[in-house]
C-alpha cells in the first residue's frame, strides 16, 4: 500500500497545533514562568486564531524563493555600480541612519519574538512568534547585505553594530527595544507586535522605502519589497494578539490600554528620526512628515481605533499633542543633529534655498516663523567660516533619551521641561507622556543608560571628546561633520566629474 498523502488541513494541524503536548508530570506554570506576572488573564488558548496559516515547511519554501530573487538584484546593483545612480551622495546618509538606527532593531525584535515564541502558553501564538522571530533575523541580514555595497564607497557604515551600543542618539532606538524586551511576553507583543509593527509600521518602512525609490536606490527598494509580505504577516499577528487578549478577559482591558498609551508614544518619539529623514535628508522628497502622519496615523490608525472601540479601547489622550507637534518635529530634530554632527556617524547640512521653500510650502504655519531663521543663522555662521557645531553635551529625557529639544505646543519657542522626584533623585522628561511612563515604573527607568551621563561618569573612554570618539569607533573628520567638504562629498564630485 502506498503511503497516504495528507490533505492540507490535516497537514497544517499536524505541523502547527499538534506540535504541542499536555504536561502530565511537570507543572505547566513552571514551563511558562512568565505567563502570569503581568496580570494578563488567558482563559482558553484554543480561541487563538492562527494569523499566518503557514506551516514551517511552506514558510521556508516561500522565504527561500524571495531570497533568491533579492540577492540576484543585489548582485546586479553591485555590478552596475548602483551607488553612482542615487540622486545625490547626501541621500546615503539616510541609509547610514537606517543601518545604525533601524537594522539593529530588527535584531532586537528577532530576540524579542524568540522570547515570546518560547514563553506564551498557546502553541498557535508560539509558532507565529517564532516565524516572526526568523523573519526579523532575515531582515537584519538582508539590510546589512543591501547596504554593504554602499559601505565600500561611503563612510559611517562599517561600525554600525559597535556604534549601536554606544552612540548617544542610537541609545534612542536601542533603549526602546530593550524596554520592550525586558517587559513580559504580553507587553512585548503589544509593544512591538501591535503598536510598532501594526499601528506605526507604515511610518517607518514606507518613508524609507519610498525614499529609496525616489532617490534611485534599487538595493534598498528591493529589500523593501522582499520584506513587504513578511510585514503583512506581522501586522496580522499584531492585530490577533490585541484582539485575543481583549476577548480573553475583561480584566485585560486596562492593562492593554496602559501598554498602548505607553508604546504608541515610545514609538512616536522613535519616529522623530524618520520625520527628519523625510523632511531634511532626502534630496528627492516623497512627502512631508506631516503628510505621512496624517495619512498613516490620523486616517489609518484612526479607523483602527474605531474598530477597537467595541472592546473599550480608547485612542491615547496625547494624540492631540502629536497632531500639533507634526508641524515642528522634523525641524527640531534636524537642528539637534545639525549642531551635534561632530559626534554623529552621518553628515548633516544646511537645507538649500529650494529645500527651504519646499519646507515653507509644506509647513506654512511654522517653518518661516520658527525654523527658517535657525537655518539663516546657520548659513550666516557658515559663510563666516564658523560652521555651527555646538559646545557641551545635551540634557536628555530619562525615558526616550532624546535631547530635551521639544517645545511646548502652546509656545513653540519654549522648551518643554517636566520632572519627577523619585527616591530623592531628580529625573527630567521632554513631555507629559515620557514623564508618566517613568512614573508608572520608576524602578525600570532609573536604570537607563543615558549616553551623556555615561560620558560624564567617565565610562565612555574617559577623558575628552577625542577619547569618546575612539570609544565610538567614529573617525573624526571622515564619517562625522558637515556633508560639505566630507570625503563622501569629494568622492561623489569625482565620480560625477564636478570640480
Amino acid at each position, binding site marked *: 500500500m502506498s503511503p497516504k498523502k495528507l490533505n492540507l488541513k490535516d497537514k497544517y494541524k499536524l505541523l502547527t497545533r499538534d506540535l504541542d503536548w499536555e504536561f502530565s508530570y511537570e507543572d505547566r506554570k513552571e514551563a511558562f514562568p512568565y505567563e502570569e506576572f503581568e496580570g494578563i488573564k488567558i482563559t482558553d488558548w484554543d480561541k487563538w486564531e492562527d494569523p499566518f496559516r503557514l506551516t514551517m515547511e511552506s514558510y521556508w519554501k516561500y522565504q527561500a524563493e524571495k531570497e533568491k530573487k533579492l540577492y540576484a538584484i543585489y548582485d546586479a546593483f553591485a555590478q552596475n555600480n548602483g551607488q553612482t545612480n542615487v540622486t545625490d551622495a547626501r541621500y546615503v546618509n539616510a541609509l547610514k541612519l537606517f543601518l545604525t538606527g533601524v537594522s539593529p532593531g530588527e535584531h532586537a525584535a528577532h530576540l524579542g519574538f524568540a522570547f515570546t515564541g518560547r514563553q506564551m502558553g498557546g502553541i498557535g501564538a508560539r509558532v507565529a512568534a517564532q516565524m516572526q522571530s526568523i523573519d526579523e533575523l532575515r531582515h537584519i541580514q538582508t539590510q546589512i547585505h543591501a547596504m554593504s555595497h554602499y559601505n565600500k564607497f561611503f563612510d559611517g557604515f562599517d561600525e554600525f553594530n559597535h556604534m549601536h551600543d554606544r552612540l548617544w542618539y542610537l541609545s534612542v532606538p536601542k533603549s526602546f527595544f530593550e524596554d520592550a524586551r525586558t517587559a513580559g511576553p504580553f507587553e512585548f507583543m503589544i509593544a512591538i507586535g501591535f503598536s510598532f509593527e501594526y499601528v506605526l509600521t507604515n511610518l517607518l518602512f514606507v518613508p524609507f522605502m519610498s525614499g529609496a525609490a525616489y532617490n534611485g536606490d534599487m538595493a534598498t527598494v528591493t529589500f523593501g519589497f522582499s520584506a513587504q509580505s513578511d510585514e503583512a504577516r506581522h501586522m496580522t499577528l499584531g492585530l490577533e494578539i490585541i484582539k485575543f487578549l481583549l476577548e480573553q478577559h475583561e480584566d485585560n482591558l486596562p492593562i492593554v490600554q496602559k501598554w498602548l498609551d505607553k508604546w504608541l508614544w515610545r514609538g512616536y518619539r522613535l519616529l522623530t528620526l524618520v520625520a527628519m529623514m523625510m523632511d531634511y535628508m532626502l534630496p528627492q522628497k516623497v512627502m512631508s512628515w506631516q503628510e505621512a502622519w496624517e495619512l498613516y496615523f490620523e486616517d489609518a490608525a484612526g479607523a483602527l481605533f474605531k474598530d477597537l472601540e467595541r472592546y473599550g479601547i480608547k485612542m491615547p489622550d496625547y494624540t492631540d499633542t502629536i497632531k500639533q507637534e507634526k508641524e515642528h518635529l522634523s525641524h527640531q530634530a534636524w537642528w539637534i543633529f545639525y549642531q551635534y554632527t561632530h559626534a554623529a556617524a552621518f553628515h548633516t547640512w544646511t537645507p538649500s534655498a529650494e529645500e527651504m521653500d519646499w519646507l515653507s510650502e509644506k509647513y506654512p504655519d511654522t517653518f518661516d516663523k520658527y525654523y527658517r531663521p535657525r537655518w539663516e543663522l546657520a548659513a550666516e555662521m557658515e559663510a563666516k567660516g564658523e560652521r555651527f557645531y555646538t*559646545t557641551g*553635551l*545635551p*540634557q536628555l529625557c530619562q525615558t526616550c533619551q532624546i535631547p*530635551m529639544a521639544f517645545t511646548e505646543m502652546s509656545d513653540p519657542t519654549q522648551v518643554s521641561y517636566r520632572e519627577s522626584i523619585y527616591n530623592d533623585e531628580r529625573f527630567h522628561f521632554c513631555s507629559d507622556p515620557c514623564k508618566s511612563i517613568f512614573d508608572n515604573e520608576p524602578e525600570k*527607568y532609573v536604570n537607563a543608560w*543615558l549616553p551623556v551621563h555615561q560620558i560624564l561618569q567617565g565610562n565612555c573612554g574617559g577623558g575628552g571628546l577625542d577619547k569618546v570618539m575612539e570609544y565610538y569607533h567614529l573617525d573624526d573628520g571622515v564619517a562625522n561633520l558637515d556633508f560639505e567638504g566630507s570625503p563622501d562629498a569629494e568622492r561623489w564630485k569625482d565620480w560625477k566629474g564636478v570640480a
Partner: protein
Amino acid sequence: MTIRALRDDYHGEFKDSLEKFGGLQLLYLGWDKHQMFCSSRAFPLPPEMRFQELLDNVMPEAFGQHPEFTQINWNKAQWILDNSAFQPDHSKTLTEMGIGHKSLLRLVTPELTGYKGAGI
C-alpha cells in the same frame, strides 16, 4: 507598584546617582527662548562652586556661541531653578543655594529676544 517585574523585590540600579560622578554633581543649564542651542546642557560641577564662578567659567562654555551672549546683563538676569523662581547670591556655593544633583537652572533674559527676535 513601581515596576511590574517577575519578582516583587526587584529594584533598578540608580545609574546616575550622585556618588557615580566622582565628587561632582550634575547641573543642567538652559537659556530660555534661545533655541540656537537645541537643548539645555549637562555639566559636572563641584558642589562647592560659587555662583560667580559658574557665571564666569561655565556660562561662556554653555552659551558663549550665541551672538547675544555678550549683551547679557548678569545683574538683571532672571533665573528659574527646578521650575521655581530663583534669586542667586553670587558669593554663595551651589550647595548653599539649594542647587542639587541634577538640578535644572534656566536663565531668562526677557530683553534679549534671540536671533532675529525669533527666540533663537
